[in-house]
C-alpha cells in the first residue's frame, strides 16, 4: 500500500492563468488573483463532475472513446445547454507545443480557403449500416478466415522468434490472457508451472487438408502462366491472416525454387518467386524473422547472381535485381537487430564482392543496387568514395576496345544506376555551385554527367516545393475519415479492401521504429507518405495523377509554421520518387510518391494528419511502405559497423 500509488488527485486544478485568459476573452479585464483562484477551483470541480457523467454515457454507448456528444449529454443531464459546434467524427487532433517552460495543448483550427473546399468534389456519401455474419467458432474451433483474427498474432510470432522461451504457444493463448486478469501471486505460480511445460513446446507441423489444398493452389498459381491467377494468389498471400502455419512451406518453396531456377536461368520464375517474397513481407499478420535464413539467400542470389537469364544481352534481368534489392532493403529495415546484424552483414557481403576486381558487371550492378537501396547514408559512405574508381572502370569498357557486348550493356546499366542514386544524394549534401570541373576532379569520369543530373535534381526539388506550397493545404486538410472505415471488415465479399488494415500498420512502422543501436540515429523523424495511382485513384482528388510533385525545405516550414522555433534546427528532408511500382511485369499502374520528412517537433501533428489522409487504393502498394522506410534510415553506418562479424 504505497502512499504514492495514486497521483495527487485532489490537487489537479486549472491554472489561474487560464481563468484570466478566459475572462479576457469575454471582455473582463482586471480579474483579481483570489477570484481567479476561487473560480479555477470551482470550474475544475464542475469540469470533473461533467467528465464523470460523460463517462457514463460512454459506457452505455459501448465505446472506449469519450466523444463530444457524451459531454453534451452530460451537460444536458445537469440542465446546461450543450456546447454546439464541437462535433467530431472520431477524435480531436490536439496539438502540443512547449516553449518558455510552458506546455500547451491546443486544437488547431486552420484557416481554410473556401474556394478550395467549394472546388473539391463532394466526398462520397458514407455507407449505410449493414449487417454481416461470419463464423466466430465452429464447434469450439475458430476458423481461420479473414473475418477472424489470425491464429497467431504478429506480436506473438515476433516474440516467438526473438524470445523463444518466454513465448506462449497459440494453444495456450487463453491461459495467458487469464493470468493477466488474476492476482500477481497466482499468475506467478502458474507461470512457473507452465515454464516447465514450455520447455518442450508442442508444435504440429501437419497442415489440414484445406491448408494443403490452399498451399498447392497458391504455389501453382504463383509460378503458373496465368497472370490474373497469379495476381489473385499474391493478393491472398499478402492479406490472408491464416497463413502462419504454412509459412515454413512457403519459405522452403521459395528457397528451393530460386536455387533451381538460377541454375536454369529462368528469369520469369525468379521474378515470380520474388513477388511471392514481397507478398509474404506485406502480409501484416506474418512475422518472417524465423525464415530469413531461407529467404535472404534466395533474395541475395537474385540480386548478385552472375547470370539470371538465358540471354543477358536482351532480357531485362536488371529490373529483377532492382526489385530484389528493394526487398532486401525492406527486410533489413524490418528485421535487422543488434543480435542478427542483418544489415551490416549484407552490407559487408555487397561491398566485398563489389571491391573484387574480377566481379562481373552483372554482379557489380547487383551490389551497387543492393547498397544504394539501403539509404542515402550508405550511398554517401560507401558508394560516393568509389565513384572515381568505378568511373574509370566504366570508361575502360565504354571507350576502350570492345570486349563484349554484354560487358558494355552492363557498364551502361551500372553507370545509369550510379547516376540515379548518387545524384539525389549529392544534390542534398553538396553545397552549390555545381561546377562541372569540380565534379570531374571529385568523381572522375562520371563527374560531368553526374553534375548535370544533380542540377536536374535540384531544379526538380525547387519546382516541387512551389507546387506543394500551393497544395499543402488541401493535401493535409482533415477530411471525414469515413472513407477509411467504409469497406469494413475486409471480408471475403466484394468489399474486401486490405488497405484498411495496412495503411495504419505501414504508417506506424515508419513513425515508431527506433533506430537500431548500431546506428547513430538522427532525431526521430516522421513521414507522410502519399501515393497516387494514375489508374484507380478514386478517393484522392487532391493530387491528380499527372501532377509531378516537388518539395523543398520551405514546404516543410509551411506545414509546420506553428512550431517555427523548431524548424530552424533541423533540415527538412525531401525526396521524390517516381517509378513503376512493380518494376516487373508492367502490370501495375504507374505510381508516384512523395515522402516528406519533417523535424521531430512537428511530428505530433503530422502523425495525426497522416491518419486522416484519404486512403487511396494505391496506398497499400508495397512501394509506399518501402519508400517511407528508405527515408527512415537517414543516418546509417559509420564504417565501424563494417567490422567482420
Amino acid at each position: 500500500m504505497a502512499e504514492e500509488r495514486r497521483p495527487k488527485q485532489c490537487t489537479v486544478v486549472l491554472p489561474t492563468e487560464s481563468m484570466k485568459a478566459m475572462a479576457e476573452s469575454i471582455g473582463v479585464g482586471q480579474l483579481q488573483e483570489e477570484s481567479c483562484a476561487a473560480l479555477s477551483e470551482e470550474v475544475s470541480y464542475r469540469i470533473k463532475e461533467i467528465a464523470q457523467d460523460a463517462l457514463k454515457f460512454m459506457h452505455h454507448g459501448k465505446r472506449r472513446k469519450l466523444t463530444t456528444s457524451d459531454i453534451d449529454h452530460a451537460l444536458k443531464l445537469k440542465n446546461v445547454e450543450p456546447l454546439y459546434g464541437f462535433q467530431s467524427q472520431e477524435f480531436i487532433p490536439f496539438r502540443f507545443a512547449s516553449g518558455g517552460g510552458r506546455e500547451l495543448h491546443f486544437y488547431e483550427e486552420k484557416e481554410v480557403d473556401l474556394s478550395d473546399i467549394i472546388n473539391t468534389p463532394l466526398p462520397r456519401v458514407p455507407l449505410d449500416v449493414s449487417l454481416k455474419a461470419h463464423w466466430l467458432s465452429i464447434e469450439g474451433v475458430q476458423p481461420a478466415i479473414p473475418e477472424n483474427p489470425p491464429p497467431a498474432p504478429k506480436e506473438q510470432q515476433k516474440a516467438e522468434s526473438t524470445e523463444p522461451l518466454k513465448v506462449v504457444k497459440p494453444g495456450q493463448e487463453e491461459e495467458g490472457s487469464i493470468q493477466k486478469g488474476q492476482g500477481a501471486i497466482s499468475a506467478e505460480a502458474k507461470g512457473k508451472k507452465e515454464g516447465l511445460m514450455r520447455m518442450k513446446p508442442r508444435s504440429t507441423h501437419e497442415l489440414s487438408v484445406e491448408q494443403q489444398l490452399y498451399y498447392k493452389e497458391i504455389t501453382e498459381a504463383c509460378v503458373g502462366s496465368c497472370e490474373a491467377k497469379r495476381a489473385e494468389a499474391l493478393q491472398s498471400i499478402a492479406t490472408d491472416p491464416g497463413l502462419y502455419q504454412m509459412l515454413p512451406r512457403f519459405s522452403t518453396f521459395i528457397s528451393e525454387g530460386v536455387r533451381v531456377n538460377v541454375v536454369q536461368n529462368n528469369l520469369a520464375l525468379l521474378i515470380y518467386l520474388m513477388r511471392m517474397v514481397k507478398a509474404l513481407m506485406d502480409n501484416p499478420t506474418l512475422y518472417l524473422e524465423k525464415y530469413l535464413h531461407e529467404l535472404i539467400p534466395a533474395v541475395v542470389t537474385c540480386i548478385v547472381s552472375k547470370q539470371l537469364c538465358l540471354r543477358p544481352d536482351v532480357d531485362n534481368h536488371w529490373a529483377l535485381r532492382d526489385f530484389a534489392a528493394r526487398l532486401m532493403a525492406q527486410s533489413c529495415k524490418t528485421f535487422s537487430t543488434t543480435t542478427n546484424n542483418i544489415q551490416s552483414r549484407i552490407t559487408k557481403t555487397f561491398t566485398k564482392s563489389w571491391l573484387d576486381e574480377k566481379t562481373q558487371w552483372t554482379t557489380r550492378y547487383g551490389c551497387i543496387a543492393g547498397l544504394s537501396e539501403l539509404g542515402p547514408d550508405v550511398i554517401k559512405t560507401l558508394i560516393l568514395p568509389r565513384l572515381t574508381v568505378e568511373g574509370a572502370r566504366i570508361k575502360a569498357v565504354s571507350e576502350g576496345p570492345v570486349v563484349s557486348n554484354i560487358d558494355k550493356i552492363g557498364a551502361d546499366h551500372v553507370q545509369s544506376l550510379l547516376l540515379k542514386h548518387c545524384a539525389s544524394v549529392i544534390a542534398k549534401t553538396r553545397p552549390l555551385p555545381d561546377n562541372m570541373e569540380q565534379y570531374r576532379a571529385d568523381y572522375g569520369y562520371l563527374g560531368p554527367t553526374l553534375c548535370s543530373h544533380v542540377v536536374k535534381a535540384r531544379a526538380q526539388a525547387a519546382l516541387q516545393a512551389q507546387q506543394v506550397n500551393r497544395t499543402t493545404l488541401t493535401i493535409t486538410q482533415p477530411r471525414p475519415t469515413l472513407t477509411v472505415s467504409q469497406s469494413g471488415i475486409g471480408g471475403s465479399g466484394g468489399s474486401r479492401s486490405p488497405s484498411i488494415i495496412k495503411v495504419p500498420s505501414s504508417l506506424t512502422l515508419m513513425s515508431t521504429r527506433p533506430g537500431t543501436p548500431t546506428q547513430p540515429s538522427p532525431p526521430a523523424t516522421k513521414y507522410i507518405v502519399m501515393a497516387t495511382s494514375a489508374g484507380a485513384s478514386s478517393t484522392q482528388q487532391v493530387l491528380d495523377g499527372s501532377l509531378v510533385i516537388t518539395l523543398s525545405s520551405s514546404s516543410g516550414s509551411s506545414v509546420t509554421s506553428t512550431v517555427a522555433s523548431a524548424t530552424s534546427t533541423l533540415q527538412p528532408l525531401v525526396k521524390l520518387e517516381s517509378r513503376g511500382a512493380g518494376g516487373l511485369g508492367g502490370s501495375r499502374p504507374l505510381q508516384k510518391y512523395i515522402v516528406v520528412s519533417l523535424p521531430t517537433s512537428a511530428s505530433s501533428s503530422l502523425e495525426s494528419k497522416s491518419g486522416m489522409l484519404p486512403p487511396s487504393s494505391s496506398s497499400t502498394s508495397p512501394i509506399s511502405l518501402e519508400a517511407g522506410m528508405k527515408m527512415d534510415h537517414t543516418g546509417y553506418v559509420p564504417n565501424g559497423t563494417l567490422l567482420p562479424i
Partner: protein
Amino acid sequence: MAAVQDGQLNMEVEKDIKTEITNDGSGNINANSSSPGSTSSGGKSKSPAGSGEDQQTLLAVLQFLKRNKLTESVDILRREAGLSADADDSPVSDSAGAGSGGVPNVSADGGDANSLLSRVSIATPVAPPATAPPKGLVRSHSKVMPSGGEDQPDVNVVLSAYSQQGDPVLYPLYYNGLKKFIESVLDCHRAELSQVFYPLFVHMYLELVYNNHENEAKQFFEKFSGDQECYYEEDLRILSSMSKKEHMKGNETMLDFRTSKFVLRISRDSYQLLKRHLQERQNNQIWNIIQEHLYIDIFDGMPRSKSQIDAMSGSLAGEGKRDANKAKVFYGLLKEPEIEVPLDDEDEEAENEEGKPKKKKPKKDSMGSKSKKQDPNAPQQTRIPLPELKDSDKLDKIMNMKEATKKIRLSPDNLPSICFYSFLNAYQGLTAVDFTDDSSLIAGGFADSTVRVWSVTPKKLRRVKSAADLSNIDKESDDVLERIMDEKTASESKILYGHSGPVYGISFSPDRNYLLSSSEDGTVRLWSLQTFTCLVGYKGHNYPVWDTQFSPYGYYFISGGHDRVARLWATDHYQPLRMFAGHLADITCTLFHPNSNYVATGSADRTIRLWDVLTGNCVRILTGHKGPIHSLAFSPNGKFMASGATDGRVLLWDVGHGLMVGELKGHSDTIYALKFSRDGEILASGSMDNTVKLWDTLKAFDDVELDDFTAATGHIHLPENSQELLLGTYMTKSTPVIHLHFTRRNLLLAAGAYNP
C-alpha cells in the same frame, strides 16, 4: 414475508382482473393517444433536490427548537412556513412519512394482487407520493427492510450530519491511531476490522470538507487515500474533486454517502475489540461516525477471511444486510401450458410453419416432463396475472418445442458454434442489440437516435397495408394474414425514427409483434413490428433510460435509468405499475426472471437487486462487483444468475439463497453481454475486450458446496477455478461484443459493431 403470503391467499380475486390484461394490441393504441397527457409523471423522477430538502430542513429546525423548549419560535416559524401543526408533532413518524415515496405505498397495498392493475386502471395518480426526492425514496426503502427500524430520523441527518466538529488537525491522528490499532490486532480480526477504513475515511473527509477545513481535508485525503482498497478508486476520484462545502450540495455521490448507512458485516469478537479500543481511547470522533453513518451487521461465529470479505465488498454502500436477503424467492419456473404438439416426421423441415397436424403424439421431452408436476420453488401460477396465450403464441410454442428436439446437447466437449453478426459502417454508433427468441429478427439501437430492425432469415420485413387498402381485402379468405401485408414495402431492414437521443436499451416482445426501446431522451417507446411505427412513448423517467426489457410472457416490461428508479410497466398503461427504488446510483441494466415474478436490476452503485413484482419489495441485495454492472443473465431454470461488470468479472449467484457462488475471471474489459445456453450448461460472456468466452457453469455450480452454515451466514469460500471453467476464448478482429443469444437449437449468436 407476510405480504407475500397474503398475496397467495388472494388469488381468487385476482382472476377477475385477469381478463383485463389480455386485451393488448388495440389497447396500446389507446394508450398512445393519451400518453401526451401524462405530464404528471414528470414530477416523479428526481426533482431537483431543492423543494423536498427545504421542507425537510424546516422540519428539522422545528424539531430542534422543540427539543430545546423554544415553543415560541416554533410557533412563529410554523406560521411563517404555513405548516400544519401535525406536521411536526411526531417527528419520527413524520420522517418516515416524508420518505414514503412510491415504495412503501406499493408495498403496503401490494399484499393483494389486485393492486397491480387496479391501481392503474382507476388511474390513481402515483405522482404525489412519488414526488419525494430520490433521497427520500432511498431512505424509505430501508424502512421497508425490517432491520432499518432503528434508523435515525432523516431530518437529523440533513441538519447535523457533520455538525459535531472535532479539531480538524486531530483527524489524521485519530485515523492513524485506529490504523495502528487495527494493524496490531490478531490476523483473524484484522481483515474484518479493515473494512472500517474506507467508510471512516470517506466520512472523516466529508466532515472536514463540510466544516470548511479545505486544506486539512486535502492533506487528509492525500495521506490516506492510498490505503484504501483499489476497487474504491472510482469513488475516491469523485470524492477528491469535492473540496468545498458548496460542492456537496447536489452531488449525488455525496447524497449517497450521507443518507445511506454503509453496511459492514463483522463478527461479534472483532466488533467487541473495536468497541473496547475506541472506548478506552475516548475516541469519540470515530465512535460517532461509526454510530451514525455505519451499520454494523454483527454475526456470531468465525471472523471472515480477507478473501471472503473482498469477494463481497466493493459496492457503494457496503454489503447487503444479511436479513435483506432472507425473504423467500420463488425461483422456480411456471408450469408450461399444456399444448398438444403435432409431431412431424423427423426428416421434415421446420419451414412449413403453419404445421401439418398429422399425428398427434404426446411429447416426450424434458420440457414435457417438467410441465407435469409443479416445482416446489415455483410461485403460484397466478401469483401475478399473466396474459393469456393467443393462438399465435401457441403456434410459436409448438415451433419452439420442435426446435428444442433438434437442440444440440452442449457440454465441455461439445461447444456451441458461434455466428457473429458484425454491424459494418456503424461508426461507433451502435449502442444496443437484441435478437428475437426465435432468432429471426435482429434489432439495433444507435447513437443517432434510430432503431433499425433486420430480418436475418430470407423472409423480408413487410408493413401492413394502409387502412384504405385493408378495407378492400377479403376478410374471409384463408390467407388473410398474408394479404394484409404490403408486398411493396418488403425489405431486409427497417428504420424506426422517433427518439431524440441515443437508444441505450432495446427489447423484442416474445411474440415478435412489438419492440421496446429506451433512450437518452428519457422515454421508452413501443414500436409495432407490423406497421413499423411507434405506438406508445412511455414517459416517466426524465433522465436517460439505460435499459428496458420485456417480460418473458410479454405484456409487462421493466425500465431503469439515471434516476435510480426501476419502473414496471404494462404495455397498455401509460403510467408505471411499480416503481422500484433503492439503488444508490444509476440503474444500468434490467432483467426479468424467467418466471416473470421477479425483476433483477444492476446498478452503478455496484449492487444487484432483485425485486418482487407482486409486492414491489426488494428481496435480494447482491454485492461483490467492483464496478458498474452492465449485464445480467438468469439461468433457464431460474435458480442462478450471472452478472458482468466493468471490472471484467462475471459473478454467479444462487438466487434462492442470495449467495455468490462463483467468480469467473478472464475478461479484461466491461462485460456487456451474458447468456446461458438453452439448457444452462454453458454461460457465454461477451466483452468490450473483443472476446466471447464460454464457461462451464454446470461445473461451477457443482464445485460450490453449500452446507447449512454457509447458506445461513453467506460466508462462502469461492474456489479459484476460473481457468478450469473457461471452455474457450474467441477473439474477434476488432469488434466489441455487445449482445449474445442462444438460438433454440443452441447455436450462439453474437453481435457487435466493427470498429476499424
